[in-house]
């Protein structure tokens, strides 16, 4: 699904990522760990194509197609979606309007009442009703911001999602809510319906995610397939995400430093 090949990324002329390679196959969830400032968000932002993140070498591929130099909205149309760590406040645009636009494949919808209803139902599910009429991200608490990001992604319905610390600053109850939402986003936890076996359903699932997490709490709600530890712009280690988390918890990231060439 998403393949990153030897990616070098500069911010304001300083190289932050020094040759990152990883692959998230169809249907898999990968976790990205690493200390503050190691370059995790930079990797997601560069993969999405944000202009402050200059790719100087390497490639980003989505379904085998090189997307390294296409505009952000074309990546979104191709099925890539992102939940931001710190989304910007956009004055004068209401949250509900952007959700409707997400549902409408990025186009400004007409006076479609059924869509308005869908937006409200989704907001209800995501506990976002109270700020649907507020300006985008204006005055949202940490947890509300995360729910709002996921609500927008659910409306957008991407096939490959990049989630930047979806659970940081979120209380326990709301982590459960976010976990459920991410599973919904990825088409996971299907209920038996008598037609297909759950095994068949599992084989059919195609949606993938790359999730940045510090605590791993979100991984209690969805099964992850692989994990990476990023140190100073390098991938120091990869393997079973639970095992990696356990090691980091026990010995800290300083042990990972040894593995950075």
């Amino acid at each position, binding site marked *: 699904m998403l393949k990153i090949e030897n990616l070098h990324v500069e911010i304001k002329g300083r190289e932050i990522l020094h040759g990152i390679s990883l692959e998230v196959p169809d249907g898999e969830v990968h976790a990205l760990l690493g200390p503050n400032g190691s370059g995790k968000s930079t990797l997601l932002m560069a993969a999405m194509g944000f202009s402050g993140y200059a790719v100087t070498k390497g490639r980003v591929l989505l379904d085998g197609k090189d997307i390294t130099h296409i505009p*952000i909205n074309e990546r979104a149309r191709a099925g890539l979606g992102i939940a*931001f760590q710190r989304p910007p406040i956009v004055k*004068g645009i209401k949250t509900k309007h952007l959700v409707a*636009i*997400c549902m409408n494949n*990025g*186009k400004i919808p007409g006076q479609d009442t059924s869509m308005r209803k869908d937006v409200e139902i989704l907001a209800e599910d995501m506990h976002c009703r109270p700020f649907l009429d507020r*300006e985008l991200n204006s005055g949202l608490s940490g947890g509300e911001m995360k729910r709002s990001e996921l609500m927008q992604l659910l409306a957008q319905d991407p096939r490959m999602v990049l989630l930047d610390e979806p659970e940081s600053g979120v209380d326990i109850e709301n982590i459960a809510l976010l976990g459920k939402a991410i599973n919904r986003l990825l088409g996971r936890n299907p209920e038996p319906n008598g037609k297909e076996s759950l095994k068949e359903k599992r084989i059919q699932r195609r949606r993938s995610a790359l999730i940045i997490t510090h605590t791993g709490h979100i991984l209690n709600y969805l099964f992850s397939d692989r994990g990476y530890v990023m140190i100073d712009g390098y991938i120091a280690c990869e393997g079973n995400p639970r095992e990696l988390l356990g090691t980091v918890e026990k010995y800290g990231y300083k042990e990972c430093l040894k593995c950075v060439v």
Partner: protein
Amino acid sequence: MVITGNTSEKHCPMKAISMIFQMVTSYGRYRAPIRCFLFRPCLYMSEEGSVQQVHNIVVAENGSDLNVLTGCTSGSSSGTHLGNSEFYVKKGATLHFTMIHAWGEEVETLPRTAVIVEEGGTFISDYISMQPGKKIKMYPAAYLKGPGATARFNSVLVGLPGTLVDIGSKVYLQAEGTRAEVISRTVSLGGEIIARGRLVGEVPGVKAHLECKGLLLHPEGKILAIPELEGRAVDLEMTHEAAVGKIDKEEVEYLMARGMSKEDAISAIVRGFLNVEILGLPAKLKQDLDEIVSESNKAS
């Protein structure tokens, strides 16, 4: 409700009439007028380079509630429009004045306006300049003479290439408990805009706020924000906020990550910035303004 219109359309003032008609019909849906009459439906400049002079006197009697809607438009003819307006808001009355300017390329507009608000009266001015013509200069002044009088000026100014917009509002707070709010939103698409504002607090305890915010969308554009506060008494609360900037790339890209095209994202942000929603404009006018915004950002 009073509807007025000025036009410099040379031969046929139809455009102005239809614009005003749209305003009347759609406006009625927002605020049901108690009495609605067409007052001087249009005035037009009959010759190129002519000078149009009008003098308006509007009085809102004690306790009355009056809406005045003025639309000024023209074709491409040249000329000068000089308007003098006097507004008297008597005790407890409310006068809501909405003016929309969409002048032809060569027209110069130099209106002068003064407002006197008596005790407990409210004066509200909503002004939109979509096409400023060659030059428009105005600096209306409101004198809050009676205790508890209020004035609110909202302006939305769009500066197209080759135009000069020099607009502001002055409020003199001269009595106890008076309040004023002056808010302008300007967007330069290549034109020069001077956004002025002046609040004068003459007695203790008055409150007023001034806000000039500008977006520069074109490298040739120019915005000069001049907010002025003058305190002549103790215990005043007068504040101002001024900002001139460009569109935040991060915001545009955030919207693009949700699938919006760059043009749509910019238009949405500009529209949000102009904040025309609060003016409660008729749908047709909002649509016209939207079109100007979308058109112009294709060029930028």
